């Protein structure tokens, strides 16, 4: 079956059997190998992607179900301007050790901050509760997402000030 979907802002397509899992389509067809296969049983969250902004386990979705949707994988987090606030948070707060769970952790963190600008530790723990870190580095993952919230807030203040200065100057 022909499928097309927007992946990290770019229209991508392929011809797949209905039984092909979304994670395999991303990794094998689109060569986006940042999305990991961990448990392959919907338990660990290493395969997390955002579908229309919501975190989903791509080992438990068919590629055909994502036809026409908009996806974000870990490759879509950074922009030409640099790392995203969540990526910077993981970098600065040592939010990763082996790195295997990191794409999923960063994507659930990113989705959380879209809805909640200033999450509590409890809310962050809730958001990452479907993602397993086998290094058990959870403390720093929570700190990293918390730090990202601060970075995001700061960058928005800067942008507002710039916007204010620009409109004030006209």
């Amino acid at each position, binding site marked *: 079956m022909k499928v097309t979907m927007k992946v990290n802002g770019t229209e991508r397509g392929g011809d797949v059997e209905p039984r092909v899992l979304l994670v395999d389509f991303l990794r094998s067809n689109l060569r986006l190998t940042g999305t990991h296969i961990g448990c*392959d049983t919907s338990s660990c969250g290493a395969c997390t992607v955002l579908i229309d902004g919501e975190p989903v*386990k791509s080992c438990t979705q068919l590629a*055909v179900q994502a036809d026409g949707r908009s996806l974000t994988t870990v490759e879509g987090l950074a922009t030409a301007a640099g790392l995203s606030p969540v990526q910077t948070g993981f970098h600065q707060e040592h939010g990763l050790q082996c790195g295997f769970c990191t794409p999923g952790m960063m994507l659930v963190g990113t989705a959380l901050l879209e809805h909640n600008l200033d999450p509590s530790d409890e809310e962050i723990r809730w958001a990452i509760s479907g993602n397993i870190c086998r290094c058990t580095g959870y403390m720093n993952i929570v700190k990293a997402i918390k730090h990202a919230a601060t970075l995001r807030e700061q960058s928005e203040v800067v942008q507002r000030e710039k916007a204010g200065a620009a409109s004030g100057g006209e």
Partner: protein
Amino acid sequence: MYPAAFDYRAPTTLEEALALLAQHGESAKVMAGGQSLIPLLKLRFSRPELVVDIGRIAGLDSIKRDDGHVVIGALARHADIERSKELAASAPLLPEAAHWIADPLVRNRGTLVGSVCHADPAGDWGSVVLAMKADVVARSGSGQRVIHAADFLKGPFETALKPDEVVTEVRIPVGKGRGGGAYLKLERKVGDFATAAVAVHLHLQGDRIEIAGIGLTAVGPKNIQAVEAERFLHGKQATDEVFAEAGRLAAAAAEPNDDIRGSAAYKKDVVRVFVQRGLKTAVQRAKEAGA
């Protein structure tokens, strides 16, 4: 893991879906969020020739009030229920139970109706719909059937649904005034199946229990309605002694097995304690709802 090959159709109308089921019968399988079906396909426990994905049918995702009921559409996801302001006000047991299901990512795709149709004895919604005396609405090309939840859930992974039918909604009576419920679940970690769990729901008339519903999760071949305990509670004063006796009766109705999550005796005792605690919480909430 790859599923065995199957054909796939994603109709955009219910009529189209029903026509496909009428044509393919037992060899077709309906998929909503896929959070139970896809694992079964991957393990090849299920090998349908055709998967009918109802996920693109408009209008099936609603959560609404209708004539003393809350109506949960076939595509309303656990996450929708968890966040619903309507349900937080009219049937707070539903968001409370939703919060315990799987993990936040699975809840972004899985549905209440899909879970009830999957009829896993360890499923959380089965107990909730039993405790709340819900009705399951099934449509086929030849019409509509309304089936009591207790009649719908027949055995492990077995329901009263016919091969040409789709469940379009679950209707849950909410009544008026002083109702309350609770969902208590023991799990080893987020996302694991329950060691045991209990749903209770009741209505108060003065200080007496008018209607009580109790559903048990993961302690038998299907979600169990604790009928003896429900009958015992009818018309009783809401006291600790009454809650304790109802807990004993519900534990007697449980038929758990020994497994890696605990011994049968342990699980029965969890049911006893959870029913007792759940009733106490439900009465408290019913009083607050009526205040």
